[in-house]
C-alpha cells in the first residue's frame, strides 16, 4: 500500500538517463511551459500529440507508463466532478436525462477534453518529480528564483522548505500506515460502514499523525543544525547547477514541437 502511494505521488525514481541528467532549471521551465501551452490548445488532436510527447519522454527516462497514469489518482475525484458538471450543464444535443437534467453530446465532448487536459497537466508535473530528486528540484527553483532575491525574496529558504516537504512525503505515508496498523491491531475498524463512517474512522489517525509530524520536524531541525546548516550563505553543492548545451537543445526542441502543435491545430480548426 505504501508503495502505491509513493508511486502515485510521483516520488523520484533514480536512474541514469538523459532526462534525469538535464539541468533541473531546464526541466522546470519546460514543464511550466507545457502546462501553460496546454491551455492554449483545445482539440483532441493537439492533446493526443502532447500525450505522445509525454510518452516519448517517459520512455527516454525509463519511467513505466503505468506509474505516470497512476499519478493522476489524487485528482481523479476532481476529474469526475468537473466531468459531471460539464456533461449536464452544457447546452446542446440531448442524449439522455437523469432526474430531469439532460446530458448533452457537447457536454460529453467538453468533459472529455477538460479531463484529458487535467490528466496531462498532472502527468507532466509528475514527470518532473519522477525524474528529478527533491534536492535537485530545490536547487533548480532556487536558481530560477535567485534574480528575485535582490528584491528580498528568500529564495534559498523557499527552496529548502520545498525539498524537505518532498522528502517528508514517504515518511508521512509510512507513519500513517504504521498508525493505522497499530489501531487496527487494537480493534479499530477502517473497512466497514458507509463512506462517512469510514472517513470518521480516520480522525483518530490524524491526531497522533500531527503529533508525530511536529516531533519529527523538530528533530530534523536539530539534526540539520548539527550538520552545520546555517541557511544559504556559504553553502556549496555536490552537484552545482550547470547549464549545458543539451539543456538549451532540449528547451529549443520543445519550443519547436510546441510551435508545430499549436500551428497544426490552428490550421486544422480553420
Amino acid at each position, binding site marked *: 500500500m505504501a508503495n502505491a502511494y509513493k508511486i502515485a505521488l510521483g516520488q523520484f525514481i533514480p536512474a541514469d538517463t538523459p532526462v534525469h541528467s538535464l539541468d533541473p532549471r531546464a526541466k522546470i521551465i519546460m514543464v511550466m511551459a507545457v502546462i501553460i501551452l496546454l491551455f492554449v490548445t483545445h482539440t483532441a488532436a493537439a492533446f493526443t500529440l502532447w500525450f505522445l510527447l509525454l510518452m516519448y519522454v517517459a520512455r527516454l527516462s525509463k519511467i513505466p507508463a503505468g506509474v505516470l497514469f497512476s499519478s493522476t489518482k489524487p485528482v481523479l475525484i476532481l476529474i469526475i466532478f468537473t466531468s459531471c458538471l460539464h456533461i449536464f450543464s452544457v447546452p446542446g444535443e440531448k442524449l439522455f436525462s437523469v432526474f430531469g437534467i439532460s446530458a448533452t453530446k457537447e457536454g460529453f465532448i467538453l468533459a472529455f477534453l477538460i479531463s484529458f487536459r487535467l490528466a496531462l497537466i498532472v502527468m507532466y508535473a509528475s514527470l518532473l518529480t519522477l525524474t528529478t*530528486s527533491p534536492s535537485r528540484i530545490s536547487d533548480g527553483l532556487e536558481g530560477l528564483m535567485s534574480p528575485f532575491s535582490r528584491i528580498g525574496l528568500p529564495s534559498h529558504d523557499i527552496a529548502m522548505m520545498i525539498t524537505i516537504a518532498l522528502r517528508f512525503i514517504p515518511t508521512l505515508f509510512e507513519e500513517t500506515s504504521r498508525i493505522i496498523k497499530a489501531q487496527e491491531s487494537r480493534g479499530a475498524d477502517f473497512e466497514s460502514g458507509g463512506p462517512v463512517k469510514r472517513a470518521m474512522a480516520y480522525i483518530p489517525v490524524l491526531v497522533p499523525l500531527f503529533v508525530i509530524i511536529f516531533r*519529527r520536524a523538530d*528533530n*530534523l531541525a536539530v*539534526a540539520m543544525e548539527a*550538520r552545520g546548516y*546555517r541557511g544559504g550563505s556559504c*553553502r556549496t553543492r*555536490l552537484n552545482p547547477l550547470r547549464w549545458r548545451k543539451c539543456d538549451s537543445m532540449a528547451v529549443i526542441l520543445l519550443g519547436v514541437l510546441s510551435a508545430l502543435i499549436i500551428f497544426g491545430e490552428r490550421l486544422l480548426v480553420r
Partner: protein
Amino acid sequence: MPRETQFILSGAEFSYPGSSGKVLSGIDLEIRAGEWVALLGSNGSGKTTLLKILSALLVPTQGSSFISGSSQDDAACGRKAPCAMVFQNPEDQIVASTLEEEVAFGPENLGCPAEEIRRRVTHSLEACGLSGMEKQLVSSLSGGQKQRLALAGALAMQPAAILLDEALSMLDPQSRRAFTEIIASEHAKGRTIVQVTHRIEEIRLAERMLLLKDGKIEFDMPREDFFRMRSEDLAAFGLELPPFEKLCEILRIRGLLPESCAADIGAVETYIYDAFGK
C-alpha cells in the same frame, strides 16, 4: 604529553524549557582532544541531552560550556566541523532523498568545493560499506543501513569530535564490529570519540568510562579501573558484564582461572589448552 582540551563543562545544569525538573545537574567534565570516552547510563539518565550540549545544540541553563573550535563567526566557511553527532534514531537526521545527497549535506554546509565533497562522499560511503549505492533512495534502506548512512554523514564532515548516541543499536553483530572498527580508525586519526551506549561489549576500546545517573556523573574512571570492577559492583550501577567476561569472573572466583589471565578469548584459550589440553 598534555593534550589539547576538546570540551569543558563546569557546573553545567540543564532543564528543558517548559518542564520543571533538571535533566542534568552539577556536571563538571573535561574531555581532551583524541580521547575515547564511553558514556553509560540507563534510559532517561540524560545521555542524549549531554551529547547535545557537547555539540552545542543545547546551551546549559546554568554553568558554562566550552567547545573547542566552535566560534560564532559566520565568515569561517570551508573549515572542519568541531563535532558531528550520530543520533539515536537515524530517521531523525536524514535530510536528503538519495544516499549521496545525504552524505554531502554536511560538507555542503561547511562550504567545501564540489570535488572535495565528491571525494568525501565516496570515501565515507565506502568506509561505511555503502559504496555503489550513491544514487539509491534513502527510504529504501533498512534500519541498520540507515545507521551506517548516518555515520557516513558524520564522517564526511571530518569533525574534530564524533558524538555517537546509541549509534549501533540497529546493527547486526557483524556490522557492529565493522562500525566499531571504523570508529577505532577515526580515533587513531586523532579524533575525539564520545560514545553513548548501555552495552559493555561496544566499549571495550574506550579509554575512559563515564556513568550518568539521574543527570549526575556517578563515576568517571579509566578503562582499566572499570574492567577491574566486579559484576556486583557493576550491577549496583545498573550495568551487566557480557557473558564471556562474566564467565571469566566466575572461573577466577572458583580458582579455575588465574587472576593474571585477561578476559580475552585468545588468552583464556591458551591458558585452558596449557592447563588441560594434554
